[in-house]
């Protein structure tokens, strides 16, 4: 609602200015710049990236708490970890030691620094999410191009597989597969990619199917363009916009997927910090009922990241929409 007067202003300004031709990319960027939600979510994502790369070792350095080190003085004699911003205990496990470095976001049940682990956990989330998304995009694009371009039996088989794959309880299968292949960063990445390639495949398939009959594509073919050139130079760029929108939201989904697998104990193996595992430690130990921040911190990190990717995906969809006149 508050956007309406602002739009009037800019369009009035554009009328006065000399008309300059703008490329589509410039138009999209200009729309994104005006979108508050897009800018905020990009800001959050930049912060997340900084936190994962530079922030994690910095936090470990300044608190003096490496991510995987157990501090027995951070857990009371009754087994309750210290809360947000508290000093660790003296050796007796009852009295505080005011000279020891605080744990800014408290400690977990094993006495590890939650802040440092959340920052290191962001690395895992980002690596798995982007890695799995990239892998699923490669597989999806190739199969989608094949199905859309060749048509016939190839298309029918690929289409049938994607339809079936989209309908069944993939999470359970993914958990099973993760157990069978064993825990590990690469394994988790591949498992997630295996269960998310069908969406890009569908997008690319439909674009290729409708695109191969377009005049300019036929013109390119009559000029002797090989199928490979037709597919990658002429047809694939048409799918770029939907793939970009989709890719953004699938990154969010894959972050959730990884957290879910780690939550169930089949993700990246401990002691490597990951958000899902921090959550499951808090929940399965029951300690989150006494100290909710144990579940609150990794949970909020997860929600904020997902929110940023989802909002960015929505804004990208609006900005890339050719029907949008702004």
């Amino acid at each position, binding site marked *: 609602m508050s956007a309406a007067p602002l739009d009037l202003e800019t369009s009035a300004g554009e009328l006065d200015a000399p008309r300059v031709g703008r490329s589509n990319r410039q138009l999209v960027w200009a729309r994104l710049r005006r979108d508050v939600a897009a800018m905020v979510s990009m800001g959050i994502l930049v912060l997340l990236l900084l936190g994962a790369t530079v922030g994690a070792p910095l936090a470990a350095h300044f608190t003096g708490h490496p991510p995987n080190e157990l501090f027995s003085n951070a857990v009371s004699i009754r087994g309750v970890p210290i809360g947000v911003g508290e000093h660790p205990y003296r050796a007796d496990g009852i009295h505080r030691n005011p000279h020891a470095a605080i744990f800014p976001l408290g400690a977990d049940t094993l006495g590890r620094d939650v802040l440092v682990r959340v920052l290191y956990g962001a690395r895992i989330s980002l690596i798995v999410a982007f890695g799995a998304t990239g892998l699923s995009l490669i597989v999806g694009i190739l199969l989608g191009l094949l199905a859309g371009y060749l048509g016939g039996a190839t298309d029918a088989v690929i289409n049938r597989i994607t339809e079936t794959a989209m*309908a069944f309880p993939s999470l*359970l299968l993914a958990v099973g597969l993760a157990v069978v292949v064993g825990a590990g960063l690469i394994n988790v990445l591949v498992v997630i990619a295996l269960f998310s390639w069908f969406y890009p495949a569908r997008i690319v398939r439909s674009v290729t199917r409708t695109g191969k009959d377009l005049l300019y594509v036929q013109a390119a073919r009559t000029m002797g363009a090989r199928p490979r050139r037709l597919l990658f130079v002429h047809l694939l760029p048409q799918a770029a916009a939907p793939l970009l929108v989709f890719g953004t939201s699938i990154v969010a989904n894959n972050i959730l997927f990884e957290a879910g697998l780690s939550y169930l104990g089949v993700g990246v193996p401990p002691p490597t910090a990951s958000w899902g595992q921090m*959550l499951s430690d808090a929940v399965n130990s029951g300690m989150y*009922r006494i100290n*909710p921040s144990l579940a609150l911190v990794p949970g909020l990190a997860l929600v904020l990241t997902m929110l940023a990717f989802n909002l960015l995906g929505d804004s990208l969809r609006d900005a890339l929409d050719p029907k949008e006149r702004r």
Partner: protein
Amino acid sequence: MSRFLARRLAGSVVQVVFITAIVWVIFYFVAAVTGASPALRIAGKTASAARIRQVEKMLGTDQPYWEQYLRFLGRLARGDLGYSYVENRSVTSIVVPAAGATASVVLGAAVLWMLIAVAIGSYGAVRPRSAGDVLGRSFAVLGMSIPVFWVAPMLSVLLAYQPTQGELFGLHILPAGTRIFPIDGYVNLRDDPVQWAYHLILPWLAYAATFAAIYARYVRTLTLEQLSEDYVRTAEAKGMTRRRLLSRHVGRNVAPVLIALLGTDIGIALGGSLFVESVFNIPGLGYTGISAIENLDYPLVTGVVAFAAVVAVIANTIVDLVHGLLDPRVRLGAAH
């Protein structure tokens, strides 16, 4: 209609064969390659080669792969899911009660999320860009970004555990020992319907939140699309009331699409319920599957996944048939 029915049912059979093949490949073929074979798991790490071969013979995993798979399919067709050596019971006797619990969670949550989604989504479509719409859309983005396995424990702290301790947000507002909602446990519907619903309120809420958000967006987009159609303008021009227009005309065009979407999501919902089940300790399929995975109980894992897959396919088929009944274009194959 009968041609549509036949085509759809044939498709379902292909889907079941395809899914069970994948399940089987994962748990027997891949498992054998990665050294996590069922026989090795049962016999133990220190077992002798002869003992492993004996277990393999018992499980039938010494046969060629294709023969094993055909046997597996044949048993499945007879409704026999195998035998759990950890529980010492037939897999069917474990899976069927578990499926009841999962159905309670998923179906109850589905009713809840559809009600919420239709309320929020149609309000947003009728009054786009109003304060209520902005609020609804914010809720939708938020709901899509909050994982079930985080909502569930948070809800249980806020509504179940903290009140029990007599405080909420650190304030002592209730006498200690007050129980608003049970944290966990499951009561069979047939034993006590009231307790059944009472124990499921939190799981339903936790599970419905995510889907309600996604479906609110669907409802809003679909309704907005319909509202820009010519027939709506005609109806308005002839003075039809807003309420009648929405329920009789717009609603009828939106409902079949929503049902189709619901059909594809039931499978996802079945799989996703394992988080809700594990947080609230509901002995459903997901919970059983996870504990079977932890116990390396391969027959039970395979049984649970195959069963869930078959149920998902059946649900899909039913939804498609209903969709075909409601929308002649689907039935006649013109929609594609």
